[in-house]
């Protein structure tokens, strides 16, 4: 998907006041906008940005103000050691919905990456299906969003999801604790909750962004159906009617509640998003209410 259609500039400009929020302090995870008991500040000049009300006046470039009569804020580069990790589901189950959950998740990942880059956080994007694919790491300001978008645009759908394998691989690869944002529909044939619990127990702070399409939660079909699982290829014959639809939705909601409980129980956060919700509403509404992002 080209950059223009993945996310547009006007929308990115709206994200500049936001910052990714985490609850705990992690050694090596930098970010002046987050409370931290670890010292360390940027020394090397990196970029300018427009001054907003509430910014530190000490960082204002007064020379530029005298020359241009506009207030610019000087930004200094810090050297992050532990990035914010974005785990992006690229399994076949993300193909459903209109727009596709896969497209929606990539737009959401791009937006979160931009928010992090504006705040000089380091972001690592880890696409996954059955296993982790090639990851992408970016840092150093908003102008680095281009490669991130290119990376997201180049992603394609994989096969099935295996959270157990993913959790094992993730913990063995990345030993340092930090914020882990999981963007997925969490539709694993196995059990997704136990591996997520395992990751949380290991010390990561989880932000679970649960995506679903409307047809995933409320199937619009009636009558005799022959269903095919997009990931496993398994088939199932069912007779579907209004009562069955209600049972289906109840089971789906119950699963969402369990994920939410898992997140809260482990000190993390949970956001349930339907792809019918506009991305802007999702970020400034649902994600902000869940304290996944905050205005700084």
């Amino acid at each position, binding site marked *: 998907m080209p950059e223009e259609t993945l996310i547009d500039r006007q929308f990115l400009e709206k994200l500049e006041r936001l910052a990714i929020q985490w609850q705990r302090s992690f050694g090596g995870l930098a970010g002046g906008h987050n409370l931290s008991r670890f010292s360390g500040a940027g020394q090397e000049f990196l970029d300018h940005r427009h001054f907003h009300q509430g910014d530190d006046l000490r960082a204002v470039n007064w020379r530029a103000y005298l020359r241009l009569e506009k207030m610019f804020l000087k930004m200094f580069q810090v050297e992050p050691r532990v990035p914010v990790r974005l785990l992006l589901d690229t399994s076949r*189950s*993300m*193909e*459903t919905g209109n727009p596709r*959950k896969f497209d929606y998740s990539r737009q959401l990942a791009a937006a979160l990456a931009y928010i992090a880059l504006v705040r000089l956080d380091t972001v690592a994007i880890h696409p996954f299906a059955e296993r982790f694919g090639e990851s992408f790491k970016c840092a150093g300001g908003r102008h680095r969003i281009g490669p991130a978008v290119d990376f997201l645009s180049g992603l394609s759908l994989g096969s099935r999801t295996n959270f157990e394998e993913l959790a094992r691989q993730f913990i063995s690869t990345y030993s340092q604790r930090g914020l882990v944002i999981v963007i997925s*529909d969490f*539709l694993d*044939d196995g059990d997704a909750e136990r591996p997520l619990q395992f990751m949380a127990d290991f010390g990561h702070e989880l932000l679970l962004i*649960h995506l*679903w*399409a409307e047809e*995933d*939660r*409320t199937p619009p*079909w*009636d*009558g*005799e*159906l*022959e*269903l*095919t*699982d*997009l*990931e*496993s290829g398994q*088939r*199932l*014959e*069912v*007779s*579907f009617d*209004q009562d*069955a*639809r*209600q*049972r*289906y*939705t109840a*089971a789906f*909601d*119950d*699963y*969402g*509640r*369990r994920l*939410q*409980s898992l*997140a*809260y*129980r482990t*000190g*993390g*956060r*949970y956001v*349930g998003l339907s792809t019918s919700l506009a991305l802007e509403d999702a970020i400034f509404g*649902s994600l*902000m*209410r*869940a304290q996944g992002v905050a205005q700084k």
Partner: protein
Amino acid sequence: MFLLNLSLGELLGLFAAASGVLVALYLLDRSRRRQAVATLRFWQSADRPSAVRHRRRIQQPWSLALQLISVALLLLAISQLRFGDPDAGTRDHVLILDTSAWMSARGPKGVLMTAARASALAYLRALPERDRVMVIRADALATPAIGFESNRRVLARAIAQSRPSSSALNLPQAFALARRMQRLESRQPGEIVYIGAGRIPRTDLGQVAAPPNLRLISLPPPGDNFGLRRLTVHRAAEDPQLWEISVAAHNYSRTAQTVRVGLLFAGAPVGTRTATLAPGEEKIIDFRYRNRSGGWLEARLLTADSFPDDDRATLEVPSEPSVPVTVFSDDPDSFRPVLAANSWMQARFERPSAYHPVESGIVVLDRFCPDSLPVVDSIWIEPPINRSPIPVRYVEHNVALARWRSDHPLAAGLRTKDLRLKQTEVFAAAPGDIPIAETDTGPIILARPGKPKMVLLGFHPERSEMRYELAAPLLFANTLRWMAPELFRRRELSATTVGGTTVTFEPDTDLAGLRVTADNQESLPYTLEGNTARFFTATPGTVRVQTGDRELVYSQILPQMADAVWLAPRQARRGIPSASTAGPANRELWPLLALLGLAGLVLEWQLYGRGRLPSAPAAHPAGRSEGMKPKRPRFLTRRRPPSTARRAS
């Protein structure tokens, strides 16, 4: 119980076809559809137990049954299911509605046509609903207004649209048509109903054969009526400016009537006559009126009666035609007697020295030849020998007029005996020239047809020995008649009644060129028997009959009033039948069946239809709490998906 529109076989066939289509569509609609989904884990918990939905081909039998019942009800509505015997009480009646001219007359309760329409509607109401009725409008021609029809609204509309015409009633033809239609078109003949005044021409009295199933709905008789039957105008033979006008008035009432007839020309009264008419008598009342100009002539009955339509007759009288005759002569007095005798000539006398080209009429050149020949018809008297338009061979003296060419119109009726002319010119005739009078040596009166016409006389009739002969003025008259025949055309104008008209011509009339034309100049069909021509018109208008020099104009504006009263036979039923004798009214079931069928379809759609919207799902509970502070769930359970679903692969 029976079906009005379909047979049982047709109904079953249609139902079988519709049922087949329905079942096929139903099975197609309920067939298993393939769908790709993100996961199967929630479907397994939503699926119903297999014992309940075990392999049934028809998953919703009540839906299919409801559809089939609804379609059956709709088909029954279309086929018009009715109870009872299909033939019992269903009859086809013919309603003859009199629309003759008499129906415009006023009776004690108003215009007869209004009463006839009311009676016809009352008769329709008295009939059983299933009975069919055919409406025939009867005047001079019996015309079906609508075929056998059971829809009372359509019948009422046809009755309401019936208007009185101007012609008389032809009752034998109407009865014959009604019998024929019942014989050919009806399933079970009912009555033949006549509603009208019963006034027919006296000549038809013996020809009326009343049908045995006749019902007579008589109307109140109209009041006294006397009307005009003819207004005839023609010019008097002795005086072309004098119009002879005759008005024929007829008394249709049963008592003697004294009527006043007034005559108006261009709106101004010009005469009044009073006449007493015995019952059934027709009297001719004559007027004479002198007038050269044209205008509208109107005859009017000044005594009021019950039928004013035939109390007034109008005719457009044309102005008297004339032709200018310009005479270039040094001796005008010799022409005055012959030209002054004809009122259609406007003679003008001028000297040859004052010659000027004449552009219309006729020019007479007496012993004079202009430089250029006239462009209008011309009469040359003793033209100069060396300048004559037709060469003069020589001049003869004391010569006898040998013969007249009496077979030509120019010489018609001309005779002279031992007429010797002191001097005359003899012409050299060219091919095509017509010699009218000749001596033994050649023509002395010569006519050249063509355009313009030309007549040359080698002598002057009024200056020669011929002036004492009757042939002299006749020769001028024939010459003028040959050159301007329209002046001498005799006109007779008549205001008559519509319908058949008989014209009797004089025995010697040449009927080879007989033409009968209507207002729009189209020829009317006519019959010719000896000297009698007959033609027929059903609507008011003007008919022109032209033959030779005679033109008859018939302005057929008077209604044709029949003068005899037809009495129905005693055995004929009379009046409007009561509803009890007409049989019980049948109630139509098709609206109820159609409503039930539609209701069934709507019910099925509501209960089982795909258009039924799924109830809006509740908001995702986890999604609603996304903005809440993280908290520990109070209770968390894990449910295993039910194991009733089958995995195909």
